[in-house]
């Protein structure tokens, strides 16, 4: 029987990591389906996927994380998966926690975030300061506390897959989560552990982190409050 859970792995220039990450999933977690979304990588990421006959969506052009993840969600939507999880290609996420995220989702949540700081304390570093500030911005606007808003490990249920796949401004970022919490979507965090990136380079240098922070702050504090939730699925259910 086909799995109900799809692991979406957006990959941009991950030739050093992709084989290790995907082989681990295939070997140790055959109960889950997966799809790699190659986001127009300039290195051998796509070649490695084809050589190993991985399940691959090969984007011709670099769309950025939001566009790549949405491509994966469109696949999940059309294939009718019950649940999709965003999974890093650099090996930071551990597949052993997918089970506990899925169990929590069965209790009636729409989005489950694999969070590093539910039961553990957030370490004090410059990088975590950004995480803390976004968390504050979300408390101000939603009155709900999310301990690890920048975690990239997010699980969506069927309803959310459709909403994320078919609409504009549904990037997998804290501002979307903030907006959805405000419109009464049920979001829950589950404690997970994450590994450090083994090889390759992170997208976030200092300048990009700063630009990201400014964008998130303006988006969460100003823009999200003006959005109207008119999605195809809501219109359908109201009719």
């Amino acid at each position: 029987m086909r799995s109900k859970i799809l692991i979406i792995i957006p990959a941009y220039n991950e030739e050093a990591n992709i084989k290790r990450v995907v082989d681990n999933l295939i070997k140790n977690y055959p109960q889950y389906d997966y799809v790699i979304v190659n986001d127009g990588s300039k290195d051998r990421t796509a070649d490695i996927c084809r050589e190993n006959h991985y399940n691959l969506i090969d984007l011709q052009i670099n769309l950025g994380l939001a566009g790549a993840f949405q491509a994966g969600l469109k696949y999940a939507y059309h294939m009718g998966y019950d649940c999709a999880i965003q999974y890093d290609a650099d090996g930071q996420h551990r597949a052993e926690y997918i089970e506990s995220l899925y169990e929590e989702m069965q209790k009636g949540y729409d989005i489950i975030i694999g969070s590093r700081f539910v039961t553990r304390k957030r370490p004090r570093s410059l990088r975590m300061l950004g995480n803390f500030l976004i968390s504050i911005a979300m408390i101000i606007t939603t009155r709900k506390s999310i301990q690890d808003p920048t975690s990239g490990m997010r699980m969506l249920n069927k309803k959310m897959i459709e909403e994320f796949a078919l609409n504009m401004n549904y990037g997998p970022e804290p501002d979307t989560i903030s907006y959805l919490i405000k419109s009464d979507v049920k979001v829950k965090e589950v404690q997970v552990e994450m590994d450090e990136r083994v090889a390759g380079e992170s997208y976030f240098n200092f300048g990009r982190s700063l630009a990201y922070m400014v964008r998130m702050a303006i988006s969460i504090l100003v823009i999200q409050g003006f959005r109207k939730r008119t999605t195809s699925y809501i219109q359908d259910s109201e009719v």
Partner: protein
Amino acid sequence: MMTILFRVVLIFVSFCTSFFILRKIRQAKMQIEDSIFWIIFAGAVLLISIFPKIADYCASVLGIYSTVNFIFLFMIFVLLIRNFYVTIKLSQLDGEIKELTQEIAVAQTMNKTSEQSVVGKEEIEGEEQ
């Protein structure tokens, strides 16, 4: 020095900009990334009109005789830089559309060719029987 009327005009411009941008977001007709610049721009204009001392100070530091001239110069520079980035982005998008159109058309032609060769073989086999 800025007249009260000029400050009111700037505040009006700031609110109009915000209103149009936020309306586009509300209608889901604009991506949030692209709206950030306009929100910051509107914020800066509002700041200058509420605290005109900022503009006075900048003008005197740069040796510009009138504050209003500084504001004109500032806006021209900001919009010029913005235009520069928009031109680059537009050029990249143009290139990407060309690439995608070609890729899709070539893929469709290749599909058709392979279908035709399959159909062709079947027809020949059918005639032989």
